[in-house]
């Protein structure tokens, strides 16, 4: 079974991922791609303790995730690839040899310099360009926080000023 979701979420593993997506997709593993977390045993333990026993967590750097992507996509159980920011996903997509077809913008929250596009998406101009660059590689980019919400296509996301 292919990876069910490639998600950008600055909270990484949290309620929406474990419960909101995890239960309907019957996720059995999370691939957390973050160079910093991949080098910290403490951070890894923190995230492991946040998931139910039936779910495993793999920690990779971007380079390692790209190298293991083909085998991860062949795993029989459903899983999710999770990154904390647009730049990390951009690097992963660039090294994925076309193996990533869709990217979910799940949560990029407020910080200085970011403009609100949706209730759960705030972007700087470089981050907007980062999403365009991902899409330019043939990847379907949309924003959706939970499975029951409507996926907002990239074009609509980047022109949205409602914060809805």
């Amino acid at each position: 079974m292919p990876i069910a979701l490639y998600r950008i979420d600055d909270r990484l593993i949290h309620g929406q991922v474990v419960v909101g997506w995890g239960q309907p997709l019957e996720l059995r593993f999370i691939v957390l791609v973050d160079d910093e977390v991949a080098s910290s045993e403490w951070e890894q333990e923190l995230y492991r303790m946040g998931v139910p026993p039936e779910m495993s967590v793999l920690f990779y750097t971007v380079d390692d995730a790209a190298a293991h992507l083909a085998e991860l996509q062949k795993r029989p159980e459903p899983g999710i690839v999770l990154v904390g920011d647009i730049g990390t996903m951009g690097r992963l997509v660039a090294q994925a040899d076309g193996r990533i077809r869709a990217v979910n913008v799940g949560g990029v929250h407020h910080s200085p310099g970011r403009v609100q596009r949706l209730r759960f998406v705030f972007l700087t101009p470089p981050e907007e360009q980062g999403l365009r660059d991902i899409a330019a590689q043939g990847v379907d980019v949309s924003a959706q926080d939970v499975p029951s919400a409507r996926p907002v296509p990239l074009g609509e996301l980047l022109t949205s000023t409602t914060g809805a």
Partner: protein
Amino acid sequence: MSTTTDTDVAPATVRAIVAGHGSFATGIISAVDQITGRGSSFLAMSNSGLCLDDIQGTLARAVDDTGARVIFTDLPAGSCTMAVRRMIRARPGVLLVTGINLSLLLDFAMQDAVDPVVAVNAALERGRASMAVYGG
């Protein structure tokens, strides 16, 4: 505090912080207040619209400002729980209790003459024991 943090209660009286998704914290504190009149013992915080760093920073300020030594959160995997676990590494003596329910919080609220950390242990048992299934 950001606009996502409920500061209706007086920080001087705060014995614990409640943090969670959406309106969880304000809702459960409202229920405690309705039942016991002791809602002012708690400070509410929501993770709505905040990134992990902001959640952690807001919680750290709340702990430092109030002197609260107990933090209650709603979900073990939730972003508030993750943020608290990071934050309390630098704050020995601060206790995190996650997966809370109303019975637990009521029991804690009623033990206002007891050290908050000690009160947590009894409240945990009350909270666990309160769940039941009838019929079916």
